[in-house]
Each structure stands twice: as structure tokens, then as C-alpha cells.
């Protein structure tokens, strides 16, 4: 999770803004209602659905989810702030998640992370200025038999060496699973047609700043 804070004069949610959750998203969230005894229990599925379709969960989206699930917006805040997967501000089209746990570290994962930071020009939690990639680290991804490993969105890359990084970044299909998918959760925003054409037209020169740096400066 990486946060941007609001100052006290800023309005978190503009009451006049149009809703961000489309009817399709709302229907999809509602389709989870009969799985659980409480509506609140649909919160994690709802957050996944919203993030997968809109890219991140904005304050406005949190307020609308709260309304849909008949809970207080602070309940949504409370939950979302606990989990590392949810973004409350825009992330890149693809999120690269590097494992930092023990097997991957012993097998050379830190060098892979350093290489990624260098090639993308971002720090952990940073997003490239062209919006293509965000970089995060996480604890064990349960792929230790193939460490060091990393995820690009949904796709696991195994036994990654620093010299593989450039190739992985250059591959526009680096986040796509080559298997039958279940339709229960939406395709992540990063694999939309738009994103695919954007990333395949990239020239490989990634001009970046880190939003971590941006946050520090502001």
C-alpha cells in the first residue's frame, strides 16, 4: 500500500462529482451478496473488483462502496488500510511485485530488485512517469522453488536473474496468463486493449520520477 495524505483543507470526496462506480461494477459487486451473511463481508471482493476495473480505489470509490455495502466509509478505510494490495491513488498499468523473502534473497533477489529500480528509475512504491509500471516488494509469493521470482500483475516470472529484467520489461505480454481464466473477477486494468497498445508502442526509454520522491517533496 502506498498512501497520499490529504491536508485538512482538501475535500476528500466532492459531493457533486458523478459516481465512479459504473452499473456494471455495482452489479458485479452485488453478485457476491448471496455468498455471505453480511454485506460487509463483500468488502474484499468489492475492493478487488473496483481496483481491477478502475486501477485504484479512490476516496470517491470508497464512499460509494460504503454506500453499496451499507457500512460507514471509515469502515472501508479501516479495512483497506490494512491490506497491501490496494492502491488508494493511481498506480501504473502493470504492478511489478518482487519477492523479498528469504529464499529469493538468498538466491539473488536483491540484485533483481536493484536492476528493476535502475531500469525503471523508480524506488519501491514508485510509478514510472509514463504510467506503465509501479514497483513494489512483498513477502514470500509461495514460488520459492523458482526463486527469485516476481509477479507482473498476475503473471509469475520464475528464476529471474538481473540480466533477464530488460527482456521482461520489453515484453508487452509480460503480465498475461496463458490459461483459461475464471470470469469471477475482472481482467486487471493493465491488460485492457488500451494499455496493451500503449505499452507495445513504447520505445523502451522510460522517463520517470518516483511518486515516493514526489510525496516527500510536496
Amino acid at each position, binding site marked *: 500500500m502506498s498512501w497520499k495524505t490529504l491536508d485538512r483543507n482538501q475535500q476528500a470526496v466532492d459531493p457533486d462529482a458523478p459516481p465512479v462506480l459504473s452499473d456494471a461494477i455495482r452489479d458485479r459487486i452485488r453478485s457476491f451478496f448471496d455468498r455471505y451473511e453480511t454485506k460487509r463481508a463483500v468488502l474484499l471482493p468489492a475492493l478487488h473488483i473496483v481496483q481491477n476495473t478502475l486501477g485504484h480505489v479512490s476516496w470517491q470509490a470508497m464512499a460509494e462502496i460504503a454506500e453499496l455495502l451499507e457500512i460507514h466509509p471509515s469502515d472501508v478505510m479501516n479495512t483497506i488500510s490494512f491490506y497491501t494490495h490496494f492502491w488508494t491513488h493511481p498506480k501504473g498499468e502493470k504492478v511489478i511485485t518482487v519477492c523479498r*523473502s*528469504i529464499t529469493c534473497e*538468498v538466491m539473488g533477489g536483491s540484485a533483481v530488485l536493484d536492476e528493476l529500480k535502475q531500469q525503471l528509475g523508480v524506488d519501491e512504491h514508485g510509478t514510472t512517469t509514463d504510467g506503465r509500471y509501479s514497483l513494489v516488494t512483498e513477502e*514470500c509469493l509461495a514460488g520459492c522453488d523458482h526463486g527469485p521470482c516476481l509477479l507482473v500483475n498476475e503473471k509469475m516470472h520464475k528464476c529471474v536473474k538481473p540480466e533477464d529484467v530488460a527482456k521482461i520489461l520489453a515484453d508487452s505480454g509480460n503480465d498475461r496468463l496463458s*490459461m483459461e481464466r475464471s470470469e469471477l*473477477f475482472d481482467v486487471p486494468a493493465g491488460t485492457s486493449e488500451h494499455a496493451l497498445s500503449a505499452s507495445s508502442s513504447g520505445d523502451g526509454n522510460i522517463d520517470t520520477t518516483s511518486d515516493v520522491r514526489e510525496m516527500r517533496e510536496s
Partner: protein
Amino acid sequence: MATFEPVLLRNVGVEGARTLKVYESRGGYQAVRKALGMSPDEVVEIVKEANLRGRGGAGFPAGVKWSFLPKDRTHTLLCVNADESEPPTFCNRVLMESDPHQLIEGTIISAYATQSQIAYIYMRGEFHEQFHILQKAIDEAYAAGYLGKNIFNGDFSLEIYIHRGAGAYVCGEETGLIESLEGKRGWPRIKPPFPAVEGLFRRPTVVNNVETLSCVPHIIERGADWFTGIGPSHSVGPKLFCISGPVNKPGCYEAAMGITVRELIERDDMGGGMAPGKRVKAVFPGGVSMGVLSAEELDMKMDFDDPRNYSLLGLGTAAAVVIDQDTDMRIVLRNMARFYGTESCGQCTQCREGTAWMHKIATRIAAGAGRLEDLDLLLETARNMGMMPGLSICGLSDGATYPIETIVKKFRSELEEAIRSQPAGRVDRVLQVLN
């Protein structure tokens, strides 16, 4: 030993094993038919007799846990713990991606035994392929009438839903998992009440690990005596062992318990020995939370009892990672301390503060600004965090102390040596950066 025939992994590598058709052609879904012909209590009795101890880390007998459910209950819920977040554990992943129907069959039988109407599979958010594989398998089972209303044309009905997590180690703890399922922070609950009495949505709830449930069909099919005949008397049944790190064949292997750590590393049908040029320096044999073994302790038996003889917490997840001679123990120490420092949920003061301080101290040591007294400070912090039973809400706090304590105790001379040989002047510079 060499005659051990894999049970849980028998379908791994079989073409199309993820499909219902192939699974059934290899004897699948026979056990559930047999179980549905018995009374639920009979099934519980068989699992109890088999002494199936939980594979998720705590080793509590599954049948006994099931019999804690109140007799007069009307609703029961089953949670399948597929959170698999203990580094470096991946055996549940292998089970789900290679043989999803085995887990579904085990879940149906266990749900029937506990009279649960809904089973939630709590799957960590990082499992994407595994989610699609398992969901496809569940869809197939629904289509075949093995899930849903009146399954197998009988009286029993069961829904299985996958609930996806979102990145938090502590959601693998059973009450953290329950809170997370309810849409809240994954904060473990104070026990009692235990989940069997008051769990998910305040209903009687059973939480079991993926591997535990995957054993159940085989117990029903082949009987409790078959199960108790495998391995030493206190640790029966087939068991999955993970091995990772610089060995020739990292992977997930099945064996009877009681094999030694050395066998797991060396055997040709397992780790296949150390990678060229690598020697063992240390091994975390049961997931990191159980603590570390030195290279002299590789004769430890991987079962529920022997780890205690080596100052470890237990068998844990039976997932071993080998640390080689080229790895600096200060880096390992920092990695451990960071893991618990960032994963502690923060409810209990000694866990929150202790893990955070151990992380700070370990970071300083790894950066080359350690002090000799830091080692005792780490031990003292660990003692204050985990050594008083009942002090913390969940087991993460204990799990955090064992790796730190065993690293410091078993590798003290290496750490001291490293601290002594820190270049002069470095300490001040590092402290400036860290502060």
C-alpha cells in the same frame, strides 16, 4: 523408505489431472461417495482414529477439532486455509494447481462430517493462476452435481466459494482469516471463544489447511489404519515437504514423516544435493517461524516431535530453506526481522514494539553498524515477546522470536566476528543515514 508411494502428489505431472474427467478416471470422487453413505459422526470418528494432525503449522488433530463443534448447532461454516504465506512454503500451491479436485473432494467430505453448508476457501491474493485453476475445477464440480443443492443426488448441500485475500501474512492465522472474511482488518481475535464455538459470522466454524483436507479422501478410502501405518506413531500419514534455496532440485516432495533434514537436502528423489560449489551453512526446516538449524544439526527428523530437541518451535509447515556458506547471517537476520516487523498486525504491544525494534537492530547490524551488546538486546527483546504463554493474541509473536533467537544463539560467533571487523568510522556514518 524408497518404497513410499506418493498419495497427495499422485496426480502431479499426470496429463489433464486438473480436469474432473482425469481425476475421476484415477479413482477420484469415490471417497466422497463412500463418506456420504456414512453418518457425519462416523466420518469424524475415522478422521479422529487416523490422528490426522493439522498440516497448517500447529499440528492439532483435525478430528478432535471437529468434535469441539457444539452438538446443538444449526449452522456450521468451513474455512479452507489457502493463505500459504509462511516463507518459504509452497506445498498448498502445488496441491491446488496440480490436483484441485483432490482439495474439493476433501472439502466436501469435511464439510459433510462437520455439517457445514458453506465452505470458504480463503486464498491469498497473490495466487492468480491458482485461483483460476481452482475456480474452474469448482465450476466443473458444480456442473457435475458434486456441489450445490443435494449433491450426489442426496440430502446434503454445499456451496464452495473462493475468497481472495489482499496481502497480509497474519490473515493465515485462523481468527485473522475469519475477520478478513468478514470484510475487516485481519486482526486475530482473542480466544476463547474458539472458532468451533463462535467463528465466522459468530457461527460455529472450522478452519483447516489445504493439505490437511487433501488427506481426508485418502483416509476415507483406505481407512484409518492405513494412515496411522505411515511414519512414526506420533506423526502419521503422508506429508509434503518443501525444499528451496541453493539445492539442485528445489521443490515439493512427499514422504513419511521422520525423514531427516539431511535426507531432504541430499536424496536424489528430493533436493538432490547442494548446487555446485555450495555448502550448507544453516537450514530453516519448518518455515521461518520455527527457527534455524546449524549445519551440524541436519540429523533432525522432520516430524511433530523432534524439532523441539533442537530449540525449534515445531514442525511448522515443513518447508525448508537452505542458507549456503556465501550468505551473510546478518542479511538473514535482517530478512527475518523485517518480515515480522512489517507483518505484525500491531494489536499486542510486545509483538508490535518487539518486532519493530528487532527490525531496527537487525537493520543496523546488517548495515555494518552493529554493537556487540545488540545481540543480547535481541535475545532480551525476543524473550520479552514470546516466552510468556498467553501474552499475545496470536502465534505470530512466538513465531517472530524463534528465528531471531536461534540465529543469534547458533551463529553468535559469526555475528560477533562481523561486528568486530566493521571498519572504523562506518558506524557513525550508517547511524547518520539510518536516523
